[in-house]
């Protein structure tokens, strides 16, 4: 927050970790941070289930990468990527609360003409969204795949991800 230069890329894990697989975005971003380091111009955020409070992390950024539980009407663990125009269409039909909050923010930056040029959501079909701190084993098993998808998307954006030394 006190950096001299504003970050240009935001990586954001979304979801409520109290609702089992709903928190997959947050768990994935944590796993990513344990394994990789990224340049200073990349900001990594636990977006939780916040709405308008996410505005400062989206407004005026060039690229926004989000990881979240998304209902694709597929089997649990199914992973897909949504980009730019495909996002609001998909998200306006979701039941999860934070999607509505997020959609608010994406609409607002669009109206203010400060929207990131590239917006990408890596989504995964959750299995259970009951009350609980831990995710289902099926979804834990997919966290590595989600991290790999993040790395390839970041590389596509020319954002280098360096493996952290395992000895540290």
């Amino acid at each position, binding site marked *: 927050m006190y950096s001299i230069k504003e970050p240009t890329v935001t990586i954001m894990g979304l979801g409520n970790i109290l609702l089992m697989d709903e928190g997959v975005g947050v768990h994935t971003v944590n796993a990513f941070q344990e394994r990789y380091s990224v340049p200073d111009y990349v900001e990594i955020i636990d977006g939780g289930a916040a709405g308008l*409070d996410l*505005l400062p992390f989206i407004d005026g950024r060039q690229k926004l990468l989000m990881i979240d539980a998304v209902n694709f009407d597929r089997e649990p663990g199914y992973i897909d990527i949504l980009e730019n125009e495909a996002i609001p269409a998909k998200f306006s*039909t979701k*039941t999860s609360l934070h999607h509505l909050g997020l959609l608010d923010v994406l*609409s607002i930056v669009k109206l203010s003409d400060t929207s990131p040029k590239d917006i990408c959501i890596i989504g995964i079909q959750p299995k259970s969204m009951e009350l609980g701190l831990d995710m289902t084993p099926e979804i834990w098993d997919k966290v590595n795949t989600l991290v790999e998808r993040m790395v390839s998307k970041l590389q596509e954006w020319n954002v280098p991800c360096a493996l952290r030394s395992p000895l540290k």
Partner: protein
Amino acid sequence: MNAQFIRNLMITAHGVHDHIVHFYHLAALDWVDIVSALKADPKKTSQLAESLSSWDQNSAKHFKEVQEKLKTFVSSGQLGIYANGYWGHPAMKLSPEVNLLATSHYLQALHFQRRINMVVSILGGKTPHIQNLAVGGVANAINPDNQSTLNMERLYYIKTLIDEVGSFVKNAMLVDVAAVAAFYADWTGYGKGVTNYLSAPDLPMDTKGTVFALPGGYIANGDLASFTPIKSFNDEYFKNGVKESIKHSWYKGDWNKHPWDETTDPNYTGMQYDDKYSWVKAPTFYGKPAQVGPLANVLCMYAAGHAGTKKYVGDMLATISSLAKTKVGPAALHSTIGRIGARAIRCAVLYDELTTQWNALVANIGKGDVKTFNAPVFPSGEIRGVGFHEAPRGILSHWSVIKNGKIKNYQCVVPSTWNASPRNGDSAPGPYEASLVGTPLADPEKPLEVLRTVHSFDPCLACAIHMVDAKGNDIVKVKAL
């Protein structure tokens, strides 16, 4: 003492942020038709804006730019949250120019709400869900010679943020709210509801909770002369007055108890309008429902003779009167529009307190006091306590019973519980219910007028009322009773 001033700064900064967001981003679009703003003449908008205030971002060039942005956005066809707005609704009455003016300030407000919220995040570590509060003080170390604590650099940064937001609150928000109120003057006649008003004194200026910068208390039946102040954190009048009934709420049994003696045993029995129909308990003050929130707070501060409040109420009523070309008096405050007006007035009062609290903190540090924590001692045996605070949505009280160092009972009586209360033990309706009686609907299929009144309370239910089905259709149905 420092801890108290730090908490007061966070309370006021959060309040200013919250009131800006509520008016511009959560309530304004009930009154402002952003699609109509496309038809506005930017030059006329600028002339109108400059006749109203000295806000420096009201040029024709600026309004033209906002209109261009709006055109691109609307023609993209992806309106997002704005797709569900009641654009073109017969109850939308502002001219295209006023709509453009408000839309432009809607966008500017995004910037200012964020800047003032930074005060909260600097002091609280993050926002929402601040991390610095502790029983006995705050976890902010103060050391003017250390880069990693609260020091003069951080304090002056906070001062810069405070200064940045002032002109927007005074010259944009207060004026915009007065304009909406004047052009919708008929709404001063709707949404009165419950006129018993309860509010907490806040911003303690000592360490004992006996001196407050902002007064609070109780007003019965809308009569300001009946004002009874709440004087301290140990005020018996407040402590003995609060009870909650579950006659109409989904909890086991039917009782009317003091919060210290309550239980919370959920028992959902379906929607029965004559019996139990809400998860919300029904709080009462000496047996009566009470309205809480900025209107209650402003009326109590007005009745207590708080100078800043009296000034802003007078200024706002004068602006409304001159725009509406008719004399609008304080009685107009008991209404839907009154609640919105009071929120802007409270925002200005809180804004002025930011500077007062900042000066008090810096002066106290200047005396060489850098302490921010007094270790608390819990007595043994059973103790009962209550803490209260005037939150953005009204009086918030937490009631706890601690037995031998462990929590035995903990009940929160929160602002939206007072306002969204179902009928109480005497079957008297709460503020939302009472305020909707007599509201005219231009189109019952699109009950914009109901939203206006419910939104005017700033309900803390944002997470509970959104539910969308798989085809993107709203499944929320409004039942006219």
